[in-house]
Every structure is written in C-alpha cells, then in structure tokens.
C-alpha cells in the first residue's frame, strides 16, 4: 500500500474530527438532560413525586436488580416480542407467497386484508382476553395482529414487482412456478423481507405492550400499568427507559444482520 496523498490525509482528518464532534455533542445532550432533570427535582422546581428523577430511577433499578424482578419482567417482554416477531415473519412470508401464487386468492382476500390492516388492533385486545384468557397467549396474539397484516400487504406488493423478464428466463429454461419461487422470488426479495423485519420488530413491541397493559401479570407493560395505578413514578419511568433500550437493541440487531448479509451478497 502506498501512502495516501496529502489532500486525502487532510480529508480523512477532517472527517474524523467531524465524527468526534457529533459523538461529543450526542453525549452532551444526554448528560445535560439528566443534569437539568435532576437539578430541577433537587431544587423543587418540579415535583419529583410526579416527575421522578434520574437518581431515584437508578435507585429503583438497583433495588429491583438485586432481587432480579426487573430482569424477569424485561425477559418476559423480550420473550413475547421475539415469539410474536418470528410468528409475524413466518406468517407474513407464507401468506404473501400464497397470495402471489394465486391471483384469485389475492383478489378475493384483498379487501379483508386492507380492512384488517387499517383496523386499530388495540380494539381487538379485549376480545382476545375473553377468547384466550388472561395469559401470555393473548399478549402474543395481540402483538402478531398488530404487525402481520401490514407485513403481508408489503411483502405481497414487493413479490408482485419481481422482474417479469427474470420469470420469463426461468420459464424458458423449463422451470415451474416452484422454481420461480425458490430461484427468483425469495432470493431477490431478501432485502425487502429484512427491511420489513425492521418495521415488524417495532410493531411487535407495540403489540406486546398493548397486550400486557390489558392482560398480564408480568412484563414491562404490566409494570407500567401497575406503577401508574399505585403512583410509583420511579418504577414507571424506569420501565419506559428499559423499553427504550430494548427497542433500540432489537432494531440494531436486525440492522446489523442486514448489513452483514448485504456485504456477503454484494
């Protein structure tokens, strides 16, 4: 390797400096926000009983970490989210393939899918409790119902846009509809499926929290509802903070695997 030119070195140095600045500013915003919040609570500008404060939240976390309850509730929410996420991906891809394979089926079901997709799924949750009981099943079904219809519609639209010439190619080589599915449709739709997964994981989390609000004895959604009812604001805000972290981590995991996949296949 030869030494990069002077102007290239200058460019790299500038770029590096810029990135460093962004990082510093990001952390500053975070620290400043916490500091102002804590200070206002300490000075009595805001009522820490209602608004809580960073130190109280941290204390609450330490206490619950000690007896492990917070990990239990986080684990329950994570488990429910992952199960419903995998179900959504599975059902979404399978249903979209079925709709792609049969023009008649997709035309018959289209209005129903559109209706179910635009229906606010939180309205279904009370119905699900009656049908399925006050348990994890209800939470998972609620989460699946939030994400699955949009997923089917998005994937089906994507599948229908597969290059018709690539389908012609497979047919001219003597391929059947099955060959079109396995050799063109699925491989060419992987980027779409993965980007759809990024949306789904967030929606599943929404669905899980809705489900837990209404019918659960464990999970972060349950903690939030419980805390608001007994006015434990530290617990409530802490649950929300953990939810923030959880959703970011889940999103990043999929984004990272998407990046790795694209690198491997480019």
């Amino acid at each position, binding site marked *: 390797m030869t030494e990069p030119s002077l102007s290239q070195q200058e460019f790299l140095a500038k770029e590096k400096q810029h990135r460093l600045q962004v990082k510093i500013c990001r952390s500053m915003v975070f620290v400043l926000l916490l500091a102002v919040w804590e200070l206002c609570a300490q000075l009595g500008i805001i009522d820490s009983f209602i608004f809580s404060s960073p130190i109280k939240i941290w204390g609450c976390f330490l206490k619950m970490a000690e007896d492990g309850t917070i990990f239990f509730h986080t684990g329950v929410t994570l488990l429910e989210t992952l199960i419903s996420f995998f179900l959504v991906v599975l059902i979404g891809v399978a249903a979209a393939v079925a709709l792609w394979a049969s023009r008649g089926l997709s035309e018959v079901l289209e209005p129903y899918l559109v209706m179910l997709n635009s229906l606010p799924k939180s309205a279904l949750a009370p119905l699900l409790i009656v049908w399925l009981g006050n348990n994890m099943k209800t939470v998972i079904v609620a989460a699946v119902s939030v994400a699955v219809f949009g997923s089917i519609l998005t994937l089906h639209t994507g599948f229908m846009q597969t290059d018709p010439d690539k389908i012609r190619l497979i047919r001219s*080589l*003597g391929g059947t509809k099955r060959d079109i599915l396995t*050799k063109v449709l699925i*491989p*060419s739709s992987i980027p779409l499926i993965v980007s759809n997964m990024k949306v789904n994981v967030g929606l599943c989390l929404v669905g899980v929290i809705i489900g837990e609000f209404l019918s659960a004895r464990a999970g972060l959604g349950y903690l939030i509802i419980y805390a608001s009812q007994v006015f434990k604001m530290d617990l409530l805000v802490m649950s929300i903070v953990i939810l923030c972290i959880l959703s970011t981590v889940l999103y990043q995991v999929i984004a990272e695997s998407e990046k790795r996949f694209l690198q491997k296949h*480019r």
Partner: protein
Amino acid sequence: MKSKLEVKDLCYSYHTLEGETQALSNISFNVKEGEFFVIVGPSGCGKSTLLSLLCGLIEPESGTIAIDGVPGKDSHAVMGYMLQRDHLFEWRTIFDNVSLGLEINHRLDEGSRKELDHMLDTYGLLQFRDAKPAQLSGGMRQRAALIRTLALKPDILLLDEPFSALDYQTRLEVCDDISSIIRTQKKTAILITHDLSEAISVADRILVLSSRPGSVKNVIPVPFSDQCIRPLQRRNAPEFTMYFNQIWKELRDHD
C-alpha cells in the same frame, strides 16, 4: 438441407378488457439446419411475441410450429432463449448462474459440471467462475448468459435483441464474439433485432416484418463471399451497403 423449423400461418392477439390487439398475422417461414436466421421489423411489430411463441411460452391462436417435422407441442426439442438483458442473478456466482438451466432440469452432475467448466474456460470466464456478476463487464456478462443458454444443449437458439442493452463499441465486439461462437458450434439460431446493420452483419437470411399486426414482408438471403464471415469483416464488405439499402427500402415500403 431440410427444415429445422417450420412456421405456418401463425396468428396471435393480445386480449385486454379494453379490446383485442392483433400482434401477428399469418406468419410463415422456414429455418434450415445450422442457419443464422434474422428477423427485423419496426418496434412494436410483435418480434418478441414471435419468439415467445417459438419458445412455447405462449400458445398460438392459430397456425402451427414444427421442429424437425414434429409439431411444437409434441416436440422434445430444446429451445435456448436469450433475453434482451443478461439477467444474471446478482446473488449467485457466475458458475451458479450458468448452471441455472441444468439445476432446474435436475441435470447438474459431475459430468455436466466439468462440461460447464470447460465452456467457461473456452469463453475466457474460468477465472470468474466464483465471482459475482457485478464484477464482470457487459460483454463478459452477455457471454455468461450465452453459456447459461448453451448449457442445456438447445436445438435452436432464440436471441431477443441480446446486444441492445450494451454501449455501441461493446455491442460490436459482443455481436462479433457471440455470433462466432454460435457459428463454430453450428447451432441453428434465430435473432430478432431492429438494427439493420446488425442483422446484415450476422445473418444468412433476413425476414422483414411489417408493423403491427406483424406479417411477413419478404425473406431476403444475404450471401457474402467466404472470406467475410465475421460480422466486423462483413460491415466492410461491398455487398453490405447494397443489402442495407435493399432492406431499408423493404421496411419503408407501403407503411
């Protein structure tokens, strides 16, 4: 020489809710064994429809297609279809792309793998065997697409403007390249194009189609002296301009 392909009174129409569009009307022609047959015509004259019919992707409304005297439906002849763009799959390596046809027909084994490697070697692609299509130039991609088509050992090659997506210089080179490969393999080939110079530079005979609905205007033989076989040599031959003017007139007449 006997007819490899016999097309008789072929008609085809497209149907939509808005109405019927006749694409081809009463097309009849013969292609001889080992012949390089070119179909030219204005755009929208149903050239691609004709190839789809020959390939068996769609059924004719009336008329017959016979290969070696056997009706198209009962024939076991293999048609090799080359599309306008190479359509190599970006997620497969070059080898996995050229073996696609064999894979679909469940004929990929030790022997056919070796044969494919040999073909890749012959056409200068062996070093790109495990590369992705994105790493190849336009000409190399088109050559890979040809190997993919030839791998099934087709009786007749159908070429649907296979050079039209390339830039002019590459186009001349690839046309030279591909037509030489087809000639040395002594394949029967049918090429459709709207480029007259390209047609004259590769063809044994040229069929001129009228605009929609496509019908046969004329079939013109374009013999060249023996030393002018390669397309690039043909373009410089004295006969070239003569044929060009003849076919140009044919296309322009009674439009």
